[in-house]
């Protein structure tokens, strides 16, 4: 640089007022950004906390039921049944044939008057059924069983119900108690909110997720590997890439229509089954796995491929011995996101008939089933106020399911993670 330009340039005053001002502005900008960032984090954290508090607060009551004690003098009402009848292979049939419902009803009428049965949930006697099967000796004794009351009284006791129910609660105040609602964990859908359970929907979700995972994961991973490692880069593969990206953004209900048209109408698969639900959700999950899988495969350093090729590994060996293990953590991340979305999906399943009232848990992939989010949707639509807390309780079950699934996937991801 010559002396002419040197002199033309104004000398830099690092200590000058203008410079100090610039520094102060820069610091202020940093502080502002930090504060904004923290505010954003706090806001989302408080939303989450609020959601959790409300859900747990409401949902917790869904796991409990209001009960009244009923004293049953088994030797008197059964006419001397022996415990041995309720053991062994014929136990179930013998319980069925003993007319337990009438026995329970008559005991209720003795203690709570002629209209006593109106206080109790109509399916409550099944609890006695289970009690005898688990402990046959009870039929030789006088036993006090706690049976769930009707939904109106349950609501009135826990919260605030209609005037009549409130009146009943005041009358029975000292007899009413709260117990854990085991039925909620073991039953399926029912018309009486005191008798509904989450088990059917839970099992439906589980089976559907397994179908989805078994289909979407291998197909998605293979597609990602093929597109990234084998496919020639030409217009066709570009088109496929664009299509997959678009597929990931398609509204989920459209996948439901697709499932309806293809799986049900064309292939004639059984309606409402976990098979069709799983297939439909797999269609939705696959693009997510393909996209994240391709990125994971792309981020495997080329030097590893070269190293493997350089000692004579075939392209297939390079992919399965080196690229896939290194890409697996990334692929699993995509799978977690996709599966979490699939688990929470309602809309596409409505289209393929998984919104039906299903009172028995599915025992296979073709049995009519429903899933947790659809069950939540159905219960939230019910008129009976007893369903409100059941809805919240079902949401808690769904969230726990989701957390367990994600925790498992994160554990697997960390196990496969390679430390460089």
């Amino acid at each position, binding site marked *: 640089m010559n002396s002419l330009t040197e002199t033309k340039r104004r000398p830099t005053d690092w200590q000058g007022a203008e410079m100090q001002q610039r520094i102060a502005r820069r610091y202020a900008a940093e502080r502002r950004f930090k504060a904004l960032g923290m505010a954003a984090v706090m806001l989302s954290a408080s939303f989450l906390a609020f959601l959790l508090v409300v859900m747990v607060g409401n949902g917790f009551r869904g796991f409990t039921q209001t009960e009244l004690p009923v004293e049953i003098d088994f030797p008197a009402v059964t006419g001397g049944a022996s415990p041995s009848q309720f053991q062994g292979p014929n136990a179930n049939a013998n319980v069925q044939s003993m007319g337990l419902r009438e026995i329970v009803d008559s005991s209720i009428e003795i203690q709570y008057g002629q209209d006593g049965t109106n206080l109790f949930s109509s399916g409550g006697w099944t609890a006695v059924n289970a009690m005898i099967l688990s402990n046959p000796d009870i039929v030789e004794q006088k036993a006090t069983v706690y049976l769930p009351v009707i939904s109106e009284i349950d609501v009135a006791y826990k919260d605030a119900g209609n005037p009549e129910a409130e009146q009943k609660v005041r009358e029975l105040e000292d007899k009413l108690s709260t117990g854990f609602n085991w039925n909620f964990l073991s039953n399926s859908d029912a018309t009486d909110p005191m008798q509904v359970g989450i088990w059917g929907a839970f099992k439906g979700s589980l089976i559907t997720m397994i179908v989805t995972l078994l289909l979407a994961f291998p197909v998605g991973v293979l597609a990602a590997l093929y597109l990234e490692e084998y496919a020639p880069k030409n217009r066709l593969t570009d088109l496929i890439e664009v299509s997959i990206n678009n597929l990931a953004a398609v509204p989920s209900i459209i996948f439901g229509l697709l499932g309806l048209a293809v799986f049900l109408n064309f292939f004639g698969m059984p309606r409402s089954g976990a098979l069709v639900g799983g297939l439909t959700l797999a269609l939705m999950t696959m693009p997510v796995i393909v996209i994240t899988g391709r990125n994971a495969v792309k981020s495997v*350093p080329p030097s*590893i491929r070269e190293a493997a090729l*350089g000692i*004579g590994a075939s392209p297939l060996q390079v992919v399965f011995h080196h690229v896939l293990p*290194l890409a697996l953590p990334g692929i699993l991340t995509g799978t977690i996101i996709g599966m979490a979305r699939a688990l929470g999906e309602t809309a596409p399943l409505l289209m393929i008939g998984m919104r039906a009232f299903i009172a028995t848990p599915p025992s296979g992939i073709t049995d009519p089933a429903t899933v947790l989010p659809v069950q939540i949707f159905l219960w939230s639509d019910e008129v009976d106020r007893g369903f409100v807390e059941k809805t919240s309780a079902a949401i808690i079950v769904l969230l726990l399911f989701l957390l367990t699934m994600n925790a498992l996937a994160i554990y697997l991801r960390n196990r496969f993670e*390679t430390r460089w």
Partner: protein
Amino acid sequence: MNDDQKMQEPSESVNMTDLATTGMTSDGGTPKMTARHVDVFYGDKQAINDVSIDVNMDSVTAFIGPSGCGKSTFLRCMNRMNDTIPIARVTGDIMLEGEDIYSSQMDVVQLRARVGMVFQKPNPFPKSIYDNIAYGPRIHGLATGKEELDNIVESSLQRAGLWGEVKDRLSDSGTALSGGQQQRLCIARAIAVDPEVILMDEPCSALDPIATAKIEELIHELRGKYAIVIVTHNMQQAARVSQKTAFFHLGTLVEYGETTDIFTNPREEKTRDYITGRYG
């Protein structure tokens, strides 16, 4: 070339005097690899222009030349690593013991085992040291049992001068080693598949002088057991480790001959300018 010849110790005097050459090829025994009129194109761009060269079993061949002169490209043609670049096209003949490596009969996977490669940046697999070495023998079925595999691993590491440093931690990750150790691990990995030729693409450019000295020492020791081709930017290194040197410039082979001749008495003006540091 049969096994006896492969294992014979080359005598220093033969290398230095009898092999004095005047052409693009040498007359020092049967060439392990020969290239004739090789052109390489990347799309429309020609990267290598009519290169003919012989690589001998008993000598280390160095490729020198300024950046972008095509020496690495040519090296990667010798075990068909350029196949992984879709737009690369190779014409002419490259022979490994008289077999055209670009013919349809040649199995490229086996070729790469026979013509091993060591890369510029050390690239051990993110696996244990043992698995790094054992991987090649495993996929090629070179060992029938655990014991044989252990032997291969040990002898490969010994040949690469790494055994003493790693014998107590074979299950540690290969990536936990220092840069120089990683590069020797990569050389051991190449040796483990029992190659005939080892191609080294600037193996010391990412290493410090001490690690570089160890690799150079290793190259000396490996000479004669394998035909070695090394690409280097460092002319002192070429002078130290090689018996034959090829000078590439703008995709052509300018001069190929005894290293001593190239460095003391180059025939071509360009070679002289380059090795005296006038450009490059």
